[in-house]
């Protein structure tokens, strides 16, 4: 039976497992690690959102800065919120070999990205492959 993915922009089922790990919703991540980070890395990230079907002018992107536990030297980055909800975590990390440059790690919630680019209200409705939906795939895992 299909689980009940009710509510607006619902990430039911998938939301629980991811939430504690990196503050992002969903089960699936897209992780990019660039070392050393090229100067236009942030621009590349924004361009990749557009390529994924997110029109910046139609949505709000909020960059909430945070520093690592030992200050920016250990990790400096942002929680990136799309329309107020966590989409990605973008962190610059130190490279031991090159203390004056930084590596960039970008972790993105694929469910969140797919919800917006497929214009769906609930994760269960996301098209996974052909007629198979995310809801079919994760049946029984919903709260």
């Amino acid at each position: 039976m299909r689980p009940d993915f009710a509510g607006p922009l619902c990430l039911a089922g998938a939301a629980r497992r991811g939430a504690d790990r990196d503050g992002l919703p969903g089960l699936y991540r897209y992780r990019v690690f660039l070392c050393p980070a090229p100067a236009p890395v942030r621009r590349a990230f924004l361009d990749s959102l557009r390529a994924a079907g997110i029109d910046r002018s139609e949505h709000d992107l909020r960059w909430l800065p945070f520093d690592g536990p030992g200050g920016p030297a250990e990790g400096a980055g942002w929680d990136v919120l799309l329309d107020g909800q966590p989409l990605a975590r973008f962190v610059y990390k130190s490279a031991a070999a090159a203390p004056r440059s930084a590596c960039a790690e970008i972790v993105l919630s694929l469910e969140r990205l797919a919800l917006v680019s497929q214009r769906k209200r609930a994760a269960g409705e996301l098209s996974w492959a052909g007629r198979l939906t995310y809801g079919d795939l994760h049946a029984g895992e919903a709260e």
Partner: protein
Amino acid sequence: MTARDAVLEILSENLPGASVRSAAEQLKKFAAEEFLRRGLPCGGIEAYGTCRRLVLYAAGVPAGPQGKALAEIFSRLLGRLEFPGARAWESSGFCFPRPVRGLAALHGERLIAFSAAGLRSGRVTEGQEALGPRQVKLASAEKYFKTLEQASVLVQDGQRLEAMRGALAAASRRMKLSVEASDEALGENLYLAEYPVPVVSGFSHEFLALDPELVRGAMRSMMFFPVSDAAGRLQPYFAAFRDGISKGQRNVEDGFRAALESRLHHIK
């Protein structure tokens, strides 16, 4: 000799609000010291900050062979800025909370040429990021604020604060309710958007059964503004700001609402 204004802009990736505030204070203080030290008169010094830029504006700097002095002052100023735990991002060793992406420096129409943070100063900057990557050419120091405003960036903190107050007051009038715009909440929002655009949305009535202070606390933690009636009773609405443009308001309203309701569900 006629006096012209001078401007220095440091464009960076999004900075923490506390860093912006501290950097603007330091810029103003150090600039006054450096102008004095070189015996370079000027009509007044102000510093401003947004989430993406720090700006020093010196009014009435005499024209003449001042370009070199200004270049020295600007590069010295950058070297003096201090941030707790800031780090170097490139080989010059210049420390900043986040990577610096541009330097613009003008005295009147003249470029003040210097290098810092692995960059050379120029006469171009970027406008509102939500409008896409767009370079903005600065014709003169005096036109700096106007040019940036046309590119949907309100550089001056005071002007941005007034715009936010005005927008929330207008929202209150429209709803015939009162948006709770405390100075603290406004101050937090001040370094979130370069061109604050108001968003008004609501949340499900069921959460009104919760302790109103908990609901207010949840909203404040998300930098949203609670809405109350004349008697101070919490209403199922809130106001917030987004950056830059008012296209796709419905997406943003729905998204903010879902984010808040998910937070309230955890409280319940």
